[in-house]
């Protein structure tokens, strides 16, 4: 009996080997244009963060900076500095969520775009109505789910981590970009 039943039990696990499909909604260039429609120059910087930088980001935002490097674009309209575009990943329930945040030179959120989202529930994180709650916020705002940012039922972890992520990027701006 043993071999037969163990084979039967193992068969459904074969399905696990079927790869999921990544739902990429926006390429980086598309997200940049949606947030900074006036921008005509996007200059990429790969910012390397020291331990001291990461400590400072955590001190400002209360959120841990996971990555040692961050892809950041300086956005200009001719000679005018419009702000910064930062690409980041946060933990979703099963996979990372990739998103981009536009930050003005004064540290205000210009816009948030979700570029890759692969979770079952919570497509509302991509909807403008939810993302607009971040617009004009600064690192001094609360960024508290169900308070100044509405929760998304069924995708609470994704909503929380995106909310924390935007605040962390504002802290990163304050720590390493505001002087540039």
């Amino acid at each position, binding site marked *: *009996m*043993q071999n*037969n*039943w*163990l*084979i*039967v*039990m*193992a*068969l*459904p*696990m*074969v*399905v*696990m080997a*079927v790869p*999921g*499909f990544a739902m990429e909604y926006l390429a980086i260039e598309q997200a940049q244009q949606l947030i900074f429609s006036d921008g005509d120059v996007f200059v990429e910087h790969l910012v390397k963060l020291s331990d001291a930088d990461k400590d400072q980001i955590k001190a400002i935002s209360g959120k841990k900076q*996971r990555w040692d490097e961050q892809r950041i674009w300086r956005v200009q309209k001719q000679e005018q500095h419009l702000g910064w575009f930062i690409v980041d990943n*946060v*933990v979703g*329930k*099963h*996979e*990372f969520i990739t998103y981009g945040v536009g930050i003005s030179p004064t540290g205000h959120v210009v816009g948030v775009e979700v570029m890759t989202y*692969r*979770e*079952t*529930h919570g497509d509302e994180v991509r909807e403008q109505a939810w993302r607009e709650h971040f617009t004009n916020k600064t690192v001094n705002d609360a960024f508290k*789910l*169900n308070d100044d940012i509405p*929760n998304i*039922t*069924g995708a*609470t*972890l994704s*909503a*929380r*981590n995106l909310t*924390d992520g935007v605040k962390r990027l504002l802290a990163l701006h304050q720590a390493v970009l505001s002087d540039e």
Partner: protein
Amino acid sequence: MSQKLRISTLLIPLLISTSVIADESLLGRVKGSETLLQGAFELDQTFTYRDDKGSGNYESFNSKTELEYGVTNKLTASGYIKMQAIDTSGLWVDGYIPGPEKYSLKASGVEGSLKYNFLSPALDDFGLSGYVSLAYDWLDPHSGKDKDTTTLELQLLTQKYFMDGQIIWMGNAGIETTYAKRAAIANLPDGFEWPTDPEMEIGLMAGTGVSYRFTENWFIGAEVIYETEFETEVGQERYSWYAGPSLHYGGQNFWATLTWLPQIYGGGEQFSAQDDMDLHLIEKTKQEYMVKFGIDF
């Protein structure tokens, strides 16, 4: 065997073609505190293979099919159909296992449960749910013989996220009360005890486990479970510690969990023929293998 293969083969395209999931099991036995969304259905299937009582031959295969429904975002109701197959020989345990038994998978019980979420692990930083289930079984999971059992179980389920949810800790604590009555068996050996009077038991359980998402969609976990049972005649009838790993896949199409749970220590009532006196092997086995998978719709 060919029928089993056919059933499994039919399940695979069903699993691939449907879209997913909320209240998934990251571990084998320890439950998380999350509930289904209001109006969502989820179909879960658990297969458990239990073997080895340290004497003779003992194998049991249990199937538990569960349909969950999100009554509200905080309350999930579930109904279960349970089935059992058993193959035991060369094993006599006075009062518990009255000789050989062998049959293939057949219905063994039904169950209903409610799970209410008080605190959300993502929203409140700490997840807490209450869980109650009522089960009626007509086959004894140990001997495989006819035995009517009614069980009421209450549990508290806790959950906490670490590293933004990449590590998930879960803890369960519960109590169950059981009322059982065995059917009489003819032609038992002289002096073999097989009481048919109703029996009442109280069981306690506590479990904790951690699951870590080591790469996208894949989680590795481990859990430890303590179970004990008390009854009037002998006091503490049994206790067992189980500990083992789980591998979990959660994705857009479905989730599945593979668990190995060996009994690492146990005691209480024992029988003289068992080959390991550091385990409880009358009502438990040396190990359990579990496969769970779920789809929602």
